[in-house]
């Protein structure tokens, strides 16, 4: 699947300062192709996460459009966009993203049951095994370290089997071994035809990338 951004930008209002708004992302156009890993790097605060959220259908751009194949994401009603995201787009966000009242295993199965689907137990077992968290299946998120929570979030996204994977600093909490495991998993997903975007301020992911973008002060340039 192709994910395409056409001149998307994002401004935030602010009460103080010389201007009454700040443009975090200047008009940006980029295309993420299926079967490829795209890496977006840049310093903290450069606008990478805002851009990823707009691409994921989570944050309305101030201007511009985002298309998944020919579907304009932000022209959809919330329920249609939510369903499309659930089925086609997997997001691995920064920070903790576990439902604290569910166990690790239940968290991983969660995306599959939101719209009444059958829990993807085989895939869940496989990815828990790949990321070395099988023994934590019954643990609650509060009992997990940052790295374990990160691997749980990645396993959850891959278990759902989306066409597009958008990962925000997926290796931030991981050691080098686990970083390699995660990036290899993304590479295999891309080889299987998935569209993968990895946002990172580290350079580890670049070795796995098919295309690289660099983001600086809200603008991007191809690396």
């Amino acid at each position, binding site marked *: 699947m192709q994910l395409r951004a056409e001149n998307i930008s994002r401004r935030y209002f602010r009460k103080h300062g010389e201007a009454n708004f700040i443009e975090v992302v200047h008009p940006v156009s980029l295309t993420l192709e299926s079967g490829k890993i795209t890496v977006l790097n840049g310093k903290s605060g450069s606008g990478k996460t805002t851009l990823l959220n707009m691409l994921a259908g*989570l*944050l309305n751009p101030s201007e511009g459009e985002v298309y998944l194949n020919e579907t304009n994401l932000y022209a959809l009603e*919330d329920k249609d966009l939510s369903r499309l995201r*659930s089925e086609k787009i997997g997001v691995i966000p920064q920070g*903790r993203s576990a*439902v*604290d009242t569910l166990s690790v295993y239940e968290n991983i199965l969660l*995306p599959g049951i*939101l719209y009444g689907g059958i829990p993807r137990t085989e895939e869940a077992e496989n990815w828990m095994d790949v990321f070395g968290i099988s023994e934590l299946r019954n643990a609650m998120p509060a009992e997990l370290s940052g790295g374990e929570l990160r691997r749980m979030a990645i396993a959850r996204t891959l278990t759902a089997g989306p066409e597009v994977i958008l990962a925000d600093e997926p290796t931030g909490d991981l050691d080098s071994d686990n970083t390699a495991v995660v990036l290899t998993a993304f590479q295999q997903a891309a080889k299987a035809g998935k569209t993968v975007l990895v946002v990172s301020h580290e350079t580890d992911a670049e070795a796995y990338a098919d295309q690289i973008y660099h983001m600086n002060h809200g603008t991007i340039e191809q690396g």
Partner: protein
Amino acid sequence: MNHFSLMIRNLTRRPGRTISLILLTAFLAMSLFCGTIVVSSLRRGLASMENRLGADIIVVPAEAESKASMKNLLLQGTIGTFYMDASALEKVRETEGVEKASAQIFLSSMKADCCSVKVQIIGFDPENDFVVQPWIAESLNCPLGDMEVVVGSRVETDVGNNFRIYDRSCRVVAKLASTGTGLDTAVYCNMNTIHILLQAAEEKGIFHKIDSGNDSEVVSAIYVKVLSGTDPGLVNSRLNGHVRKATAIRTAGMMTEVSDSLSGVSRTIAVLIGAIWVLALIILFIVFSMMVNERRRELAVYRLLGMSRKMLSGMILKETALCSFTGALCGTVLGAILVFPFTTLIETSLKLPYLAPGAGTVALYACIAILVTAAVGCVSGFRTASRLSQVDPGTTLREGV
């Protein structure tokens, strides 16, 4: 795992939050249910008392406490043993404006073998009575014979039993329906029986003779019905002037006093319920506001994974509805456990006629209390659901809110 099990997990794995919501709604439902039952029972008690009294005026001996004694006897079943010369009955009947007059004689038992406490024995004249007879006719379809008694609903004996009063055996031929008044603890008999019991009491040295006249010719109270179209107040004045050593009391005045007290108690209960609801709603609002912050991250995850705003609102509302309904159900059951076994205590404390509603009405009040409380819980949660469904997942998860 499905949506329902997800909801149950959310509730059971946050026991503090869930129990707080259940307790609050239980408190609301309990106050509503108990308050409604108490006020309703008081109103039924008053209506029952009005129905049973059936007289416009009561003439009692002119002792200082007679009016209070009469009221206490009617309301609380306090023993009243006051007497006046039976000739007062003729004088009452002779008074202009009086349509009917019927006497009653009161006697307290020493300790009847039916009861752990003294009971009020009321002798009446079935031929002339218009107060007790219509009421007794509901439970007894033949004339009340000598040494036969009809007992109030709270006298602990059954029809067909015999029990002894002052060593005289009386047969219980009927048991009356509950009135919620002091009359529920009384025993009724005809004039022949009461004279036999008076004689027996005198032999035991219990019955105090009146100062003058024939000891056996006494009455305790005379119930008066005035002629239609006649002013009861005027007749009351005439009776007070015409009958010596007696006081005429208008029942309407007595009922007004009771009704005023009931209105006061009802108002107090309504204010209390109102205060409890305001307090509980404020706490409910605070709990829900806290929940907005506590659950922001969790719900951002659901949004991130593809839940629509509508689904998210629905999930929060369903959780709130389940908690509210459970709380309302528990509160109502707890209310019933608290209010029904203590009927006598409530009645004694309030000093007002108290007649609990029937099972159907109680079930209706319970349903209303449950539905109203659950609805209020859901409405309170609606604002929270609406706010939480607007959560921006990207920013929330990144900020670590």
